């Protein structure tokens, strides 16, 4: 129990929540226009791959980050083009992208490094950690909040930026109107396809950041299928938060706690297979709670 009062535990909660936080924002930005991005998992994986590879060749983590995000955007464009222009089913298109990333990253990893498992043979570059000057001095809290990867702070900042974008800006309102009632949106001159395209691209950018964090912050290498379901977990966490980036962030934190608790429990000799299951079981539980609350509010509206 004392482990949970340790600042190191809560520090690791924030660390493991970071990719899910990006994923939640990616899911939010796509779902507000009614085009839920199932391909977040694949976009993260692709970005994680290109991030490490390009960083290693350019000898600069920031160029790697840029390349990672760019690769994720390319996937988003492919999905948007196929879904909006060629009418591929959104879910199947997303599943196809996930498969594409899984296969392509292993293929290229082998072609570049001669290893199918990880990029450990390449020299790795990671996004630096940042100490926050004043916060660092605060006892307990300082140890939790300071000294994280720069991308973690970008993730926290993004929560507020996305929240503002969705709730307050004309663009956000237009995007939401497309999601809630496309016909009404068209009637006031909003291009539904353009909004959906934009929301998938924005989703791709954030998924890209999440993926780059995995291979250049969380660890310092790329491993095959290293996203390990985080994209799907993000989609469930976002559902928990509805249209609010702030609530979504709490959802991400919840999964972070589950994952960090799993790591802690392993030190208590609980088998790793069992603790590894925790976030996935939690996802299903959360999904059910969310779905039930939705049914209840539905029936309440009908009663009135």
């Amino acid at each position, binding site marked *: 129990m004392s482990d949970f009062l340790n600042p190191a535990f809560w520090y690791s909660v924030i660390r493991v929540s970071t990719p899910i936080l990006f994923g939640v924002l990616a899911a939010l930005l796509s779902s507000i226009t009614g085009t839920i991005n*199932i391909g977040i998992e694949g976009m993260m994986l692709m970005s994680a791959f290109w991030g490490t590879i390009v960083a290693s060749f350019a000898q600069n983590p920031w160029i790697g980050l840029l390349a990672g995000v760019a690769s994720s955007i390319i996937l988003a464009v*492919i999905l948007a083009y*196929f879904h909006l*222009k*060629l*009418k*591929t*089913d959104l*879910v*199947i*298109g997303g*599943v*196809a*992208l996930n*498969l*594409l990333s*899984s*296969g*392509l990253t*292993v*293929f290229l*990893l*082998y*072609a570049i490094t001669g290893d*199918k498992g990880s990029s450990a043979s390449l020299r790795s570059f990671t996004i630096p950690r940042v100490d926050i000057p004043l916060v660092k001095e605060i006892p307990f809290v300082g140890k939790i909040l300071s000294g994280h990867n720069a991308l973690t702070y970008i993730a926290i900042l993004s929560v507020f930026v996305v929240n503002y974008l969705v709730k307050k800006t004309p663009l956000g309102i237009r995007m939401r109107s497309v999601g809630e009632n496309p016909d009404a949106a068209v009637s006031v001159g909003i291009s539904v396809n353009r909004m959906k395209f934009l929301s998938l691209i924005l989703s791709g950018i954030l998924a890209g950041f999440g993926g780059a964090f995995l291979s250049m912050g969380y660890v310092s290498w790329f491993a095959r299928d290293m996203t*390990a*379901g985080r994209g*799907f*977990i993000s*989609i*469930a966490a976002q*559902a928990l938060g509805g249209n609010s980036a702030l609530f979504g962030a709490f959802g991400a934190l919840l999964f972070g706690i589950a994952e960090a608790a799993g790591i802690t429990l392993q030190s208590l000799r609980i*088998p790793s*297979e*069992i603790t*590894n*299951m925790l976030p*996935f*079981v939690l*996802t*299903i539980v959360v*999904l*059910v709670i*969310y*779905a*039930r609350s*939705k*049914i209840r509010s539905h029936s309440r509206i009908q009663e009135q």
Partner: protein
Amino acid sequence: MKKTLLVLEFTRFVITVGIALLIGYIFLLFSTDKPYEAFKLFLTGPLTTQRRFFEFLNNSVPLMMTGLALSLVFQAKVFNIGAEGQLFFGAFGAMLFALNFPQVSWLHLIMTLIGSALFGSIWAFVPAFLRTKWKASELVSSLMMNYISYFLVLFLVNNYFRDKSAGALVSYRFPQTAWLSVITKYRLNSGLFIAVLLSILMGLLIYRTKWGYQIRVIGVNKKFGLYSGMRTMSIMFWVQILSGAVAGLAGGIELTAMYRRFVWQSLPGYGFDGIIVAILARNNPFLVIPSALFIAYLRIGANIMGRTTGVAPEIVIVLQSLMILLITAEALLEKFKQKAIAKEAMKGE
């Protein structure tokens, strides 16, 4: 009219495969000095020796089963893509029955296979129940169930059923009465016959029975089904259970015929390959047979290429996903389809 549409469907297939192979070739250009040789091996590999040909047939068995499982749920537009986890849990179920059921010939094998189907449907039950009871997205929950299946089965097998005398992390060997036979010296998996038979049966179920008709109606227009008095929720539930049983059986057949132990330490991936098999077959169980053979052919071709030229065979996954995108692109060739329909309408006047 029907003929023109069929020609268009076929054209779409040819274009799709053509584009996918072209992109595959471009990838080879960048990753090997002898792209032509590699490509040739990829395309003709499974036909070069008898052993490779049987390897290709054996590979098609689990693909046919998972493709069949997914085509059933896709028919109802239910995205329970947990075939991977169901297959894994089904294989675990087969192991339980194979190791614990009395060794009566035939009965033992039959019970083992039924056990795998039972465990597969237990795994499909969770997303199906959550979906029909609380409307929780079956897509996300079935994917989560894949991971849970993986960790849970691995935990149980490695801790309670591990054969410590074997060199690797595998379960105890199944008794001989639980073996599904393999034919000829190249070890052809006789599960192939089960898979083909089951595909035909499911095809008849979908296209020749009332229940199958209801599944198809729900897939096209759920509201219409509901308003015309179908019990849509119950049908959507049972089709997932059935699909889980087929996927579980796939795991059971694979273990009882090919390995005779529980051997997997990672997810074998057949559940995800089943997605392309089902989509290529347009969710038609009859067409799942050629579709699975086609994908197995590409798979083994890529493996042979990988063994001889050192190109990672994972390239075939890239090709598969491109094919999924292109095949499901409804608007592709739409113009021609419209023209054909218009032409037909004019003729009628």
